[in-house]
């Protein structure tokens, strides 16, 4: 008998239907993945099972957990089920823990409210659970507060809270999306072990097909609140697929066709660049400490070359981008664009800086909401030696918008009228409008769904053909970087640890860290057959 069985589960919020008859079964010891793009209703399915839906929600159908239909339970009965029968893990470990309570007490609380154990007994059990999720008490005293732990460690505490009472079902809502690949690999391994050891059933919600492929025995693909396909993992990866699943797979493994780069001619040169941040004083009588974000960074970008930069969060990727753009003063070394220094006399050399442009990660904060698109994308003309006006300016705006797949008439709209993917196209239009020598893509596709991401990558490839772009593509996503770059650098703790032709680095990584990174990244198995 299934541990959890959803039977035609429907959900509407304020009379708007969100889920249409979701059915799925999970057995003990099994991982079932629910996957789909943002807004598909994945997370709300989980909250419906927990009965933690927002006010104004109405559910229909059945959600039978261990013989009990949770949808018919009273709130008082649900209190006994949550945390005891079913535990839940959330996406954002940085905010999922109470900042003013110690980690020990937060785990202990789960034990205490359900078992009536004494404080010391509950503390002892909390201690065991924390040790089991990889936080031994000698290294991680239970009196620590969440802000004293890293993201991965915090996620372990959240897992400890969820599994403290050995629930029969664990719901994990994008448990590793906010984490670095190496941390992700460790957390996924921990979850797999817990499911095996404790015979729990797990409902894993994720947008990442590669993670799904590594973790789940069964997969349900959800789109717009409907399950479009449900199958055992091997069957789904080898057998006939629904066209939406097919499209998701193709988008996830999407590779673009870059034109061959022209003959090398150096454009951007970095020599031994070092960059520091000053920290707050740790002791009254000490001078301010500095943190060296970049150590002796040296590399070149040739004209027409596409260079990738890969590293985990906090490794100095963004600092490097800012240093190149003239936004963050460097402490040593030199940065030259076409032979001209980006910093002259300790100040950014504006004439040089204006020949570079950038596309940022977050499509929602990249634009002043009070300006129209036409004004937004012409901002880079500020201070250019030649700034077009009148009909010429309009023609240039139209051309840029058309080049990124938008309409010329979009120039008169405000930014809130566009989706995330469209905004990222507008950001690219802004970056190419002055025909800059170099463009920096700073995690430019990381916030997008796979299908949108694939289209944006195509836009970039197309622009390489029509405009002959030179760019530095910064990302934490190995797959994406592999697809859109000629050469790649791997960065760790402010140092370039590996630098070479993209394919050869991915095939034969020489540095141990590169190997770890590549080994940690979940891989989508290659399609052996296709129904289409």
């Amino acid at each position, binding site marked *: 008998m299934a541990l959890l069985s959803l039977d035609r589960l429907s959900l509407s919020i304020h009379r708007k239907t969100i889920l249409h008859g979701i059915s799925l079964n999970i057995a003990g010891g099994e991982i079932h993945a629910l996957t789909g793009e943002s807004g598909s209703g994945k997370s709300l399915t989980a909250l419906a099972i*927990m009965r*933690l839906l927002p*006010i104004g929600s109405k559910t229909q159908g059945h959600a039978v957990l261990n013989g009990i239909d949770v949808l018919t339970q009273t*709130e008082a009965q649900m*209190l*006994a*089920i*949550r*945390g*005891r029968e079913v*535990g*839940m893990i*959330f996406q*954002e470990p940085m*905010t*999922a*823990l*109470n*900042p*003013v*309570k110690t980690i020990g007490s937060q785990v202990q*609380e*789960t034990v205490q*409210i*359900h078992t009536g154990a004494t404080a010391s007994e509950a503390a002892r059990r909390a201690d065991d659970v924390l040790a089991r999720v990889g936080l031994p008490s000698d290294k991680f005293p239970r009196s620590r*507060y969440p*802000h*004293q732990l890293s993201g991965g460690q915090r996620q372990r505490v*959240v897992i400890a*809270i*969820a599994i403290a009472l050995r629930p029969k079902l664990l719901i994990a809502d994008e448990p590793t999306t906010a984490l670095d690949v190496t941390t992700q690999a460790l957390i996924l391994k921990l979850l797999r072990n817990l499911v095996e050891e404790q015979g729990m059933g797990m409902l894993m919600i994720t947008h990442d097909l590669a993670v799904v492929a590594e973790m789940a025995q069964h997969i349900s693909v959800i789109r717009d609140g409907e399950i479009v396909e449900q199958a055992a993992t091997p069957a789904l990866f080898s057998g006939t697929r629904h066209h939406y699943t097919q499209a998701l797979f193709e988008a996830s493994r999407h590779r673009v066709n870059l034109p061959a780069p022209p003959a090398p001619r150096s454009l951007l040169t970095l020599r031994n660049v070092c960059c520091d941040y000053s920290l*707050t*004083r*740790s*002791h*009254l009588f000490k001078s301010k400490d500095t943190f060296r974000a970049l150590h002796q960074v040296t590399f070149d970008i040739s004209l027409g070359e596409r260079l990738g930069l890969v590293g985990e969060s906090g490794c100095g990727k963004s600092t490097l981008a800012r240093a190149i753009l003239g936004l963050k003063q460097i402490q040593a070394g030199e940065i030259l664009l076409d032979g001209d220094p980006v910093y002259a006399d300790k100040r950014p050399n504006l004439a040089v800086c204006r020949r570079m442009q950038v596309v940022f990660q977050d499509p929602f904060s990249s634009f002043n909401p009070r300006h129209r698109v036409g004004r937004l994308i012409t901002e880079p003309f500020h201070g250019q030696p030649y700034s077009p006006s009148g009909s010429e300016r309009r023609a240039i705006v139209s051309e840029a918008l058309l080049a990124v797949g938008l309409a010329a008439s979009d120039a008169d709209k405000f930014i809130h009228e566009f989706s995330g993917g469209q905004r990222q196209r507008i950001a690219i239009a802004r970056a190419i409008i002055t025909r800059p020598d170099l463009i920096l893509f700073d995690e430019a596709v990381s916030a997008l769904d796979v299908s949108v991401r694939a289209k944006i990558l195509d836009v970039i490839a197309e622009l390489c053909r029509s405009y002959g772009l030179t760019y530095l593509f910064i990302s934490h996503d190995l797959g994406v970087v592999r697809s859109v770059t000629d050469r790649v650098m791997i960065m760790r703790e402010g140092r370039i640890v590996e630098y070479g032709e993209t394919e050869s680095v991915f095939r034969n990584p020489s540095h141990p860290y590169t190997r770890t990174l590549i080994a940690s990244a979940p891989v989508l198995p290659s399609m052996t057959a296709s129904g289409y």
Partner: protein
Amino acid sequence: MLLYLIKRLVSLGCSLVAASLVIFLVIEVAPGDPAQFMLGVNAEPETVAALKSELGLDVPKWTRYFNWISGMLVGDFGTSYTYRTPVIEMILDRLAVSLPLAGYALLLSTLIAFPAGVIAASRHGRLGDAAVMVATQFGIAIPNFWFAMILVLIFAVNLPFFSAGGFVGWDKGFWAGVHSLTLPAIALALPQAAILARVMRSSLLEILNQDFMRTARAKGLSQRQTLWRHGLRNALIPVLTIIGLQFSFLIAGGIIIEQVFFLPGLGRLVFQAISSRDLIVVEAVVMLLVFVVIVVNFLVDLAYAIADPRLRHRT
């Protein structure tokens, strides 16, 4: 934590010095010579000069500032120009009314505002919330001295539960003193309680939407338990700031309320001093009030560090 404390102490000292300089310089530009004023226009120049030297007014400005500051540090606020008595004695008498009044009002407003804010937040969008919101809208709009007059009209004139004004003095016993401060304290507290309740409510509502509240619910805590165990302490952090600010408003508001109830507090003292141009008293009272406000805000900063471990560890 120690570094945090030292930093706060240094900034406390700087604030006090800056505030005292501002007050001293403003009073300094006041026209007229206090000694001349005390002795009248017909006084002999020699008598005026003698009084000036007695009052310490014949030395340069900066010396006078340092004398004033160092005097205050040992409790010497100078001598009143009109009464010829030490200012400190006059102030201490009045402080025995004004400080208890502000403290009493702060206590009342906190006792009213906390439950009101918690009720409103936990019944967000329902009747209880709406009732609290309407009540606080009016509470904020009502001037406290007008409210005081209405209270006098109702409770002292028509229903004689309280006296219409005056202060019996602490020597008549603690409860008698409290009794005669009750109406003024209510008048001061209610409008402040309205502000505090709204801050409490919005702070709690913001916390209710945080991820960690969902984690707590997923553990099996009820809505109410989540609110009390996880919401309240987090919500208190911004509320603390408001309580600190409120104390300064209560001190200032008290000066006005004292006028309604004819209380012999700092307010009466300062207004008498203004009309008799007894600037040294004005200077001392203002410095004292500003001192209290700055010290209360210092204490709020310390309370922050206790409430929020992130601040404690960030040196």
